């Protein structure tokens, strides 16, 4: 195999995207004039040239077997001349030029369990992460909760009856790979106990100064244990961020009994109307209850429905709450307001209410 090594190709980057663009896109690149959404899951883009591109968007669990990938490839060949793409929220999109193929494609997608929708004022797929499928850091699973939540909210994926877009996301630990920090509703896996120190392992695999430096609340101090260099954790100072665990495998926080989930609301990314906003804490703790996490599903559903019933048209969750005020959000959703909601981190003082703009 020395030969292979000689021919080793590196640093070529991805294939050029043009190779994968259908002719209609090449011809109308940069010439699109407007779009319409004739039905949920179908977007038609009309070009200056008059050309029309029909996109059919189907749900994806993101975790795909190679078999399913081949199936998508086959569908693309059958309906869209072999062209397809994926979206920034991991849906799959077929790029059609022949409108008569839309219905059959949708039928076939639905028949293999991939509902069509997610466009316009809908719930699209949830951005999410690895969870128990692949990550050492996870405080909860990712795919399972997404499945349970979306099963319950499927109607909002397949229709466009909501006041505005609503983006759901999930991250299985505070690292927030799902970048849930700017989502309308975010589900976040959390630890609620300080790390347990593995005294045997620690001196072998961790650099103590790094570990000490990693802790944002200075809860970790160098110490010795059984004559060996180690660390000491002031438990009351720990807020379970797991940053120490990221730099030191001997400090696991995972805990089957006490790991759980928090729910966040009101973030957004787009600049439409209001500036991008962070999500804010709605529910500090819900238990990990596999396989279907009913507490999480019901809480998310409740928030979606209260928002749907009360928001003005085009009002994202955060915009709605800004208009009605947080006290009303808690009242309408029935979520209890607790000490945990009150910020106590770096910029906490700026989150206190410094006006009498209150509703009664």
């Amino acid at each position, binding site marked *: 195999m020395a030969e292979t090594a000689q021919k080793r190709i590196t640093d070529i980057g*991805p294939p050029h995207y043009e190779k994968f663009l259908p002719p209609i896109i090449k011809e109308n690149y940069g010439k699109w004039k407007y779009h319409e959404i004739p039905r949920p899951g179908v977007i038609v883009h009309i070009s200056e040239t008059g050309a029309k591109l029909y996109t059919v968007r189907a749900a994806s669990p993101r975790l795909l077997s190679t078999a399913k990938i081949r199936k998508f490839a086959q569908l693309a060949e059958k309906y869209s001349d*072999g062209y397809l793409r994926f979206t920034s929220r991991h849906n799959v999109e077929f790029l059609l030029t022949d409108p008569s193929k839309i219905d059959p494609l949708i039928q076939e997608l639905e028949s293999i369990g991939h509902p069509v929708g997610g466009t316009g004022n809908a719930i699209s797929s949830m951005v999410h992460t690895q969870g128990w499928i692949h990550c050492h850091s996870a405080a909860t699973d990712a795919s399972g909760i997404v499945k349970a939540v979306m099963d319950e909210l499927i109607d909002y994926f397949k229709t466009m009856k909501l006041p505005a877009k609503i983006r759901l996301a999930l991250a299985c630990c505070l690292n927030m790979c799902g970048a849930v920090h700017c989502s309308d509703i975010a589900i976040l896996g959390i630890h609620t106990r300080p790390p347990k120190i593995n005294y045997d392992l620690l001196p072998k695999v961790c650099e103590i100064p790094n570990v000490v430096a990693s802790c944002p609340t200075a809860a970790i101090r160098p110490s010795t244990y059984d004559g060996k260099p180690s660390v000491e954790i002031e438990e009351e100072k720990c807020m379970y961020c797991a940053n120490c665990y990221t730099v030191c495998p001997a400090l696991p926080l995972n805990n089957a009994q006490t790991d759980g989930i928090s729910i966040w609301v009101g973030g957004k990314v787009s600049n439409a109307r209001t500036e991008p906003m962070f999500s804010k804490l709605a529910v500090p703790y819900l238990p990990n209850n596999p396989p279907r996490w009913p507490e999480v599903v019901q809480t998310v559903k409740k928030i979606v429905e209260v928002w749907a019933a009360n928001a003005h048209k085009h009002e994202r969750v955060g915009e709605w709450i800004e208009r009605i005020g947080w006290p009303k959000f808690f009242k309408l959703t029935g979520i209890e307001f607790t000490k945990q909601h009150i910020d106590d981190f770096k910029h906490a003082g700026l989150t206190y209410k410094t006006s009498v703009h209150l509703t009664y």
Partner: protein
Amino acid sequence: MAEQMKKYETPLLDELEKGPWPSFVKEIKTAADWNPMANDLLGLLERSYRDKIGHWKHGGIVGVMGYGGGVIGRYTDLPDEFPNVSHFHTMRVNQPAGWFYTSEALRTLADIWDRHGSGLTNFHGSTGDIIFLGTRTEELEATFSELTQAGFDLGGSGSDIRTPSCCCGMARCEWACYDTMKLTYFLTQHYQDEIHRPALPYKFKIKCSGCPNDCVASIARADFSVIGTWRDEIQIDQEMVREYAKNGVDIVKEVVALCPGRCIDWDGETLKIDDSSCRHCMHCINVLPKALAPGKDRGAVILLGSKAPIVEGAILSSVIVPFVKLDDEDSFNDIVELIDAILEPWVEEGKNRERVGEFIQRVGLGNYLEAIGLDPQPEMIRHPRTNPYVFYENYLEEE
């Protein structure tokens, strides 16, 4: 191999085959039918569901020759029970810009992965890569070799530039104010070395959105965010506005009242926009796509520094260049120069695991601008300081 595989009972996971949303469990089972890694993953995951805890250990450093990034090492903590996931490393494969594929390209990728891995993937990872989900250390090099033969390469991981990503832009969107895919491809190619060989204080992500709708969430998820915009007048087709009104759009409530620049007037006949007060938020255009369009003098805003909360709290990217034209090779090269300038002080003075956004917050935006040779502009801030703690060094120097 298949005949020797264990058959796991998965009563908990089976619950997640039910219901209308596509089931990841079905996907795993499909692969588990023939692939021992996928099969052991199924068993291990059922165990996690029972134990309510993950069964993965902290990853070690694994990779392909000469690269430091692109592979996430992973090992189960139950290797005796689930030997086929004793190694279960992820490979991050750089996606084509805009995530467009031909059926042929997809099949090529599937074939490679069937030969070397679990038969499971993510289309795509949160950063945008194609994720090949789980294989053994000894398969990495072979997979890499087949990938590059097929014209694909690995993406980033660790303290390197990560795979840039972008919205579909001009390929399929009427609002793209610059060619997102072209720029993304250009930057990806330019930074091959920096993507594959970690040499930064921490990760550095690049995302390109064609307009302020920011469909790749660049302002929240990229250290370097490029967001398209325009600086002349919004294009208006008055006829079409009237048609929207006729068809039931309440122009006043849905458009005028929600405009953050408070710069739209509608008298039932003509829609007037005071473009000098327009904030370029896209809302009016979003609601009336057939009638309105971004202006013709198009370009982008460049923002810097967003990241997830670990460990100083989440940061959104903030404006560093209020407007830049992006319509030729030269302008792309200027972006490269800017990125290089941005990286320099951070690489030199950034702490280990300090993102560029955190670095700027630590040294101060004013000082950082000086270091990279940009003039302070009021567009870079939400508002001037409210505290009187001004350093008057420049007056000092003038003495």
